[in-house]
């Protein structure tokens, strides 16, 4: 028997899902997957203005529509370029996919999201607030986790240069925020990558912090 209240609820305009957790529950997947789908596959996530925190929401009908239009399986990490595309563009796509792990981790303040982008022996060099950082990439992971989310991050690929098994990516990143970054900070990053067993991995991150 269908109760009257149930009927009313079904006909009422759907309320937005108000957190990563609610969105993940609605899509029956992990929060990390939701973030990845947003970054990679255009999952329609909205953000509240004037919130320091990573305040997101989503409309169920938009998620339904996205899900209907999505043809790839959930485990597919990135769009696969057509095989006839020029070799440079294939490498370019693979490098960009690697870099998105970094960007997602930076945005979410979660180093576990960016670790797949890095070679285990990767290193970092640069100055932040007058302090010289030279050493293991763990310094970056610790900084990211301590910083927390940076929802307004705006990364721009200024340059991608590929020389056979090595590559250089110059990323200009505006809109950094968080406990370590402060507000609306600007970083220039130069990543060196190495193609190891067919996969592009970051081996070095060189950075410059622009003081506003």
């Amino acid at each position, binding site marked *: 028997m269908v109760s009257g209240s149930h009927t009313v609820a079904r006909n009422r305009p759907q309320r937005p899902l108000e957190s990563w957790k609610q969105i993940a529950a609605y899509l029956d997947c992990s929060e990390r997957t939701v973030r990845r789908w947003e970054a990679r596959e255009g999952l329609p996530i909205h953000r509240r203005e004037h919130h320091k925190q990573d305040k997101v929401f989503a409309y169920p009908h938009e998620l339904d529509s996205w899900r209907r239009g999505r043809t790839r399986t959930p485990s597919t990490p990135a769009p696969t370029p057509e095989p006839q595309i020029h070799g440079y563009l294939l490498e370019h796509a693979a490098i960009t996919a690697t870099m998105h792990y970094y960007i997602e981790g930076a945005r979410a303040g979660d180093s576990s999201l960016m670790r797949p982008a890095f*070679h285990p*022996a990767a*290193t970092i*060099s*640069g*100055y932040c607030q007058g302090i*010289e950082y*030279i*050493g293991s990439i763990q310094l970056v992971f610790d900084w990211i986790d301590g910083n927390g989310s940076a929802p307004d991050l705006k990364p721009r690929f200024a340059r991608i*240069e590929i*020389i*056979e*098994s*090595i590559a*250089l990516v*110059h990323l200009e990143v505006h809109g950094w925020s968080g406990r370590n970054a402060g507000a609306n900070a600007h970083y*220039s990053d*130069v990543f*060196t990558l*190495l193609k*190891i067993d067919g996969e592009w991995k970051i*081996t*070095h991150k*060189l*950075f*410059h912090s*622009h003081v506003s």
Partner: protein
Amino acid sequence: MFAGMNAASYSNEYDSIVAAMQGYIEGSRQGRSELMRSAFHPGASFIGYAGGELRQGTQFLFDWIDGNGPAPDIRPRFTSVDILDTIAVVRLEVEGWSGKLAGSGVRMSDLFTLLKTENGWKIVQKAFHWHAAIERE
């Protein structure tokens, strides 16, 4: 050249960077790592495939240079020198590598990243690609 820098300051920084790189080039030419060590930051890193194997650490590089011996015919070209305040990237194309470890007529592409420190510009990483000629040896 990255934006945000006037031509005079770019030229000054360029000269300092190229001077640091000359240490690397001379050390390579003579097969003497002591000539290049001061160009590198003490915490510099090195990673890449040499002879088909993944090699790490600047000590591997220095040992390799010493073990290779002279490479008198190297022809280095600075194909780009990009500078952004405290950081820089140099792409060096080197033809004519020879020596006990390099073989002969080998070409290498290098990407050096540099940091402007209190002691001047220092290499903080060297990435490289050996072109296929290494297979000849």
